[in-house]
Structures are given as C-alpha cells and as structure tokens.
C-alpha cells in the first residue's frame, strides 16, 4: 500500500464532502463517477456490492465512503476516507453552528430557522416515500412499511421493536412463499 493512494483518497473525498449538499444519497452518482469512471478504483459490480453492504449496516449512508477506503487501502484507507468526507462538511457545520448561536437574537436568523422547519419536514416525508418506492414491491412490504410508520406515530416505544417485527415478517413471508 502506498501513500499515493491515501493522498488520492483524501483528495477525492474531501472535495466530495464540500459539494455533498443533501448527504450521501444526493451525491451517490458523483461518488460512483469518481470511484468507477475517473479513478478506476473498482468496477460497477464491486461498487454496487459496497453500496448494498453499507445500506445493510446502521449509521449514516456516507459510511459507504469509509468502506471504499477500506477496500482500497485497509484500515489506513478507512480512516483517511472517513476523515476526508467528514472534516470539510463538519467544519462548515461548526461555523454555521457558531453563527446561529451568535446571532440567535437577530430577526433574520429567527425567520431563517422558522423557514427551514417546514422544508425539513417535507423532505423527511419525501425520503420516506422514496425509500418505500425502492424497497416495497408487494403487499407484504407495503404493509410492513405502513405498520412501522403507524407504530412510530402512535407509540413512544423504541422503533427497534417495529423494525425487528418487520424483519421477522420478511422471513415468514419467504417461507409462506408470498414474498416476491
């Protein structure tokens, strides 16, 4: 393993970090373009594989970048890729945080904070719906999604219960032969 690859990993992901408005899902096409087309680090199949693995794990979806670093250069690659994708965007968030605290009594900032609330809410519904479109292909999976949503709305209990139940329903549906 050479230092050159680590430098390259750091450079590619630090730049991606600065443009990643909307998080991992929004920049996924650009990550793929860089990793597969521009850098030639892996082929499409390998990339798709890493995508699937990172979605099966908990945590921010940006963790996919860590996994790419790990595949390329082991633990050092994992650390470099993770720090490169985190430091630029987190530094900006830190500056924003200080600005929000410092000018919290200003009217424009209060209006700004007021204004982003409905947008954030609308976008969370949107991401729920687009996740359902990707993962729900039959009555069973739509049912799992809707019941899980109902559980979150009506219960204060940990949603992990609903998620565990959904996982079990998936396996049961497989054995009943109703999962497509």
């Amino acid at each position: 393993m050479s230092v050159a690859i680590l430098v390259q990993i750091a450079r590619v992901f630090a730049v991606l970090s600065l443009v990643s408005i909307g998080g991992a899902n929004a920049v996924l096409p650009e990550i793929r373009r860089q990793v597969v087309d521009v850098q030639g680090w892996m082929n499409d199949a390998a990339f798709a594989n890493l995508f699937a693995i990172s979605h099966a794990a908990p945590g921010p979806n940006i963790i996919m970048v860590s996994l790419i670093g790990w595949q390329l250069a082991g633990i050092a690659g994992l650390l470099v890729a993770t720090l490169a994708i985190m430091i630029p965007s987190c530094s900006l968030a830190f500056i924003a945080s200080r600005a929000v605290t410092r000018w919290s009594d200003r009217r424009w900032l209060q209006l700004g904070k007021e204004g982003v609330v409905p947008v954030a809410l609308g976008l969370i519904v949107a991401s729920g719906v687009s996740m359902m479109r990707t993962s729900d292909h039959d009555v069973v999976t739509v049912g799992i999604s809707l019941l899980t949503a109902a559980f979150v709305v009506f219960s204060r209990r940990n949603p992990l219960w609903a998620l565990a139940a959904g996982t079990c329903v998936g396996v049961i549906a497989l054995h009943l032969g109703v999962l497509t």
Partner: protein
Amino acid sequence: MTIANPDPLSVARDNPASRLVSKRELFLGFLKIGLLGFGGIAPWARHVIVEERQWVTDKEFAAILGIGQILPGPNTMNAAVMLGDRFQGIPGVLLCLAGQMAMPLVIVTSLAVVYERFAAIAEVRAALIGAAAGAAGLVLGTALKMFQKIKLSPMPLLIAAIPFLAVGVLGWPLVPVVCVVVPLSIAAAAWERNA
C-alpha cells in the same frame, strides 16, 4: 446507563439551551443513535434526542435538521455537530461525531468480511427486504409524528408539501428544490409574522 431526567421548566421552553447535556450523555446518546441507525439516522436521532432524552424540542430538532440540510454533508451529521457545539463546544462536537461513527464503522467492515458468504442465503435476503421496508416506514412515521407535534399553521404546511411533492413524488433533484423552497419558506415566515 443513566437516562437524563430533564428539568420540566427547560423542556417546556421553546429553546432549551439552558438544559445542560453532559459530554458523557452526548457521546452515549450518539453512540446509541449510530448503533440503532438502520436505514438512515434521522428517525433514530429524533427518537433518542427528542423522545427519549429530551435534549431539544421537536421544533428545535426540525430547525437543526433543516439547517443541516442546506449545508453540505449528511444533515444528521451536521445536526450532530450543531448539538455537540451547543451543549459542550468543540469537545462536544468531537464526542458526538465519534459516537455516531464508531459502531457503524465496526459493523460495516464486519459485514463486508462476511457479506459474500451470507448474501446467498434466502433467509438473509428476506430479512433484509423486511428490514428495508420497515426502515422506510420508520422515516415516514417519524415525519408524521413531527408534523403532529409541531402543529404548523396552514401556510407552512402548504410549503412543506412542495419539497415532498417535488422530491418524493416527482423525483426532482434535491439541491435546486431546496434552493427555491427555503427562501420561499423564509419569506412566508416573515409575511406571517407581519400579518
């Protein structure tokens, strides 16, 4: 693990910045969020931060997520930075980020090692399909619960429908939609205050 017992006065206030969340609480809270964060972090972040530990209100949480959304980087990671900074400054930021990333990094590399062998098993595949459907419902339910708690007035409610329709239904790219809707929403908030 000690679960925070919030001072009811500070929770009742709209901006509970006075409620002090310790470094240990921040780290453990985000460790839990990272560990639970299947299918995306936001629902779990809300569950732990708003529902379980009451560090901030639903409205404050939505504002933090919204600000996190218009900055580069995952909105939940930006939210972790802002919450860490609010309660414990730079050490808080580092603890929140480390907490959020620690378990997912260990888990994702472990999964990568065993993936080839397990992906072929039909039960594993079915379980993942069920979990993915559940995760989608989790995100939807979290949004609906936030709507229920925040009780937007009609105009912001109408504005919330725009990003939902544009991104969720029509599949438009996120960045231009956000660039248009955020100024619109701020203008609406200003208009509503003056009205």
